């Protein structure tokens, strides 16, 4: 089946920042993204778990499939938001069906 090269960007970020990140992504011309819940994790700022949270805290994972040429825009936009906050950004090569969607 016909597939097309693309990049899969995965951004783990604090929940209160979610809205700001997605807005930044849209401004950067991202056509779509998917948000996954996160149960917990660990990093330089220590270990945490959903259960240990009150209110809107915790983190989410934002997954974004884009055409390779759009990657830099996206990373700049994402970095602008993540920069001063805890969280991680990873990029993977992938193939997508229905490239017209991206």
């Amino acid at each position, binding site marked *: 089946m016909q597939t097309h090269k693309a990049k899969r960007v995965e951004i783990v970020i*604090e929940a*209160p*920042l979610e*809205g*700001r990140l997605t807005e930044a992504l849209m401004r950067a011309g991202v056509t779509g993204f998917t948000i996954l819940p996160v149960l917990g994790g660990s990093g330089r*700022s*220590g*270990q945490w*778990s*959903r*259960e*240990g*949270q*009150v*209110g*809107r*805290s915790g983190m989410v994972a934002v997954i974004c499939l884009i055409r390779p040429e759009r990657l830099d825009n996206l990373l700049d936009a994402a970095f602008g938001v993540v920069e*001063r*906050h*805890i969280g991680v950004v990873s990029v993977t090569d992938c193939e997508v069906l229905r490239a017209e969607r991206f």
Partner: protein
Amino acid sequence: MSDIIAIATANLLSPVILCFVLGLGAALARSDLSVPEAAAKAMSIYLLFAIGFKGGTSVAAHGIEARLAATILAGVILSFGLPFIAFGLLRVMTRLGRTDAAAVAAHYGSISIVTFVAATAVLEARGIAAEGYMVAVAAAMEAPAILAALWIVSRGRQGEDRAAGTDAGLLREIMLNGSIVLLVGSFVIGLITGAPGLARIESFIVSPFQGVLCLFLLDMGLVAGRGLRGRSGLLSGGLIAFGMLMPLIGAAAGLAAGLLIGLSAGGLALLMVLGASASYIAVPAAMRVALPEANPSIYLTLSLGVTFPFNLTLGIPVYVALAERLGGV
């Protein structure tokens, strides 16, 4: 004195407090006991709705007094003013940097609605009535402290960074924070529907209230315990001292304001509690957005792990006893 001890023991041996202790103990012992996040959130919605609605109906019954406006104003001033005191104390008592200190200070100007609810339960148990509009005061006190903290920080900052504090959407987010909207909204609903409205949902919002509060505090204990388990290392002696001194200062400020306004004993106690309590929901979320450099572990552990238990166990009885002595009728 004796009455303080009486109230304190009655309070400490109430199911509500013992549930908190149970949760705290279970978490410290690393039990896997946990309340689902959705259930905890549902309970907090129930509690906010119930006290808001009851407050509204009681105002509907007694009519809106002039003191309502005065008390709300006092609350706003307290919420905006206390962070400056807290910030000063923190710089003296602890080694926290400017940003961390400001973030912590914001929490102490704002309020903990659960502490407020627990206090209303204690008042009820002692048959002391309070002004229904105190819930509106509580709502009014959530946000100003955040602005105070941002202002403190921005004063110590250069251009581009100052921008950060004053994020476009942030103000709206703070004012339209879910708990504020629900509290004010249900207060207004209670105000509109009054006694007949209350009659229709009384068996939902009144009778099970204490029981729900028990399970909610069980979860609060679990959360506080988990926080302490992981991060207690962060708490220097100075910080812990601050976590117990600041509530007393906040309560004193609340007491002074309340006496000036001439609140009833119940209202006085609640204003003291609002002054004394520290936020751990609205403010932390706002701080992550506005002051990401501030270490969340510090303010969360301090507010939830030190001040919340302190108010819940020792603070409230003291505030109530003082209010009963000094408060009007």
